[in-house]
């Protein structure tokens, strides 16, 4: 895997694990176990009312995303999910927060939205899928803002 496709190792390993889970009930139980461990953004990072610029606008679970640099070129992501019934959003947030901890922005921008299908399933509704993909896209956008722009090639 080259630098342009590399994603955080822990996330890559987890995706492979999910790929091997074909029983839908088992998959749901695994996802719920992540949702159970979901921790909302700590107050030192943000508090309600959360700023709109952190909101995933297309996620009906009212998800918010923050990416905080550690000063050494790595990011830590935090999430809030305001809809109490937004279990899928909580599961995804929990997975993304734990498996990208300390990742470099360059790895985050390589995330693909097919993560959602690999974790959940291919036949989820378009609305639900797009909302969850929106969380991944927001992480990518945040990470992109920390990726150093390459120097322009000289003519």
């Amino acid at each position, binding site marked *: 895997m080259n630098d342009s496709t590399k994603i955080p190792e822990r996330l890559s390993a987890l995706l492979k694990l999910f790929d091997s889970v074909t029983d839908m009930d088992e998959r749901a139980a695994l*996802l*719920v176990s992540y949702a159970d461990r979901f921790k909302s953004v700590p107050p030192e990072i943000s508090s309600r009312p959360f700023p709109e610029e952190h909101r995933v606008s297309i*996620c009906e679970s009212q998800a918010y995303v923050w990416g905080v640099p550690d000063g050494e070129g790595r990011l830590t992501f935090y999430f809030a999910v305001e809809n109490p*019934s937004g*279990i899928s959003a909580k599961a995804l947030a929990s997975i993304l927060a734990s498996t990208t901890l300390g990742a470099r922005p360059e790895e985050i921008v390589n995330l693909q939205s097919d993560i959602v299908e690999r974790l959940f399933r291919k036949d989820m509704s*378009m609305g639900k899928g797009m909302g969850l993909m929106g969380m991944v896209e927001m992480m990518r956008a945040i990470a992109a803002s920390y990726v150093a722009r390459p120097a322009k090639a000289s003519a």
Partner: protein
Amino acid sequence: MEDISSRGYSQPDLLVSTDWVMKNHAAQGVRLIESNEDILLYSTGHIPDAVNVDWTVDLNDHVRRDYITRQGFEQLMSRIGVTPDTTVVFYGDKNNWWACYAFWVFQLFGHKRAKVMDGGRVKWEKEGKPLTRDVPTIKPTSYKAPERNDVVIRAFREDVLKHISAKNLLVDVRSPEEFTGERLHMPNYPNEGALRGGHIPGAKNIPWSKAVDPDTGEFKSAAELRKIYADEAGFQPSKDIIAYCRIGERSSLTWFVLTYLLGFKNVRNYDGSWTEWGNLVNVPIEK
């Protein structure tokens, strides 16, 4: 709110209270069915003895944009342990959108022993009633279903075109922003692929939420509902009405309200809804 039997509904027996479910969830001949928008919600805890029916996996055809066939419905009913004599009771999240949607699909196959739990999952949770993660062990049943009947309560795009030509009533149950075309999707939801914004010509905008008490999640009384649909919008029980939204889930709730709570005789749900109409070539749209 007052008891369901005191609210003046046309068919009050189609609704059951959370207290009724508390007493009857394990009763022989009753099968609770949870149907949600979030695919994981059932797994986080559900009413004891309830089974999960997922609208995308269990009710929709996986290839065509359509519903399951007779054979698929029979397999579903077998899996969830339902016979023709079983009373199925639907409930779910989102003020019972998906519960009403599942109820409507079951009616396409003529399963008349069906009810909806008033207030849905939120009311059950607010009342502190028990939830469990234990999935009930179901003994598969044998269920013979008739062919799906799409004529009586379902409308297709050709039906809608004829309907608007005849200047019949249409109710658009989406948000006012979707109705006017200001948004292509409901607030906080993604755009599910509609190329045009607006509404079907002649439709009246009565958002689904008007039928529900915002505090309790229960359906409003028949008098309150009549004020909304009959007095203010001019809908009459004998008229031919088509309800639609974005994919037919919110309009299933309005279909349920008009048909069973107010006793309207000819209400159909256009499940193609705006995700079809907003993409169709050469059909009229109003903003």
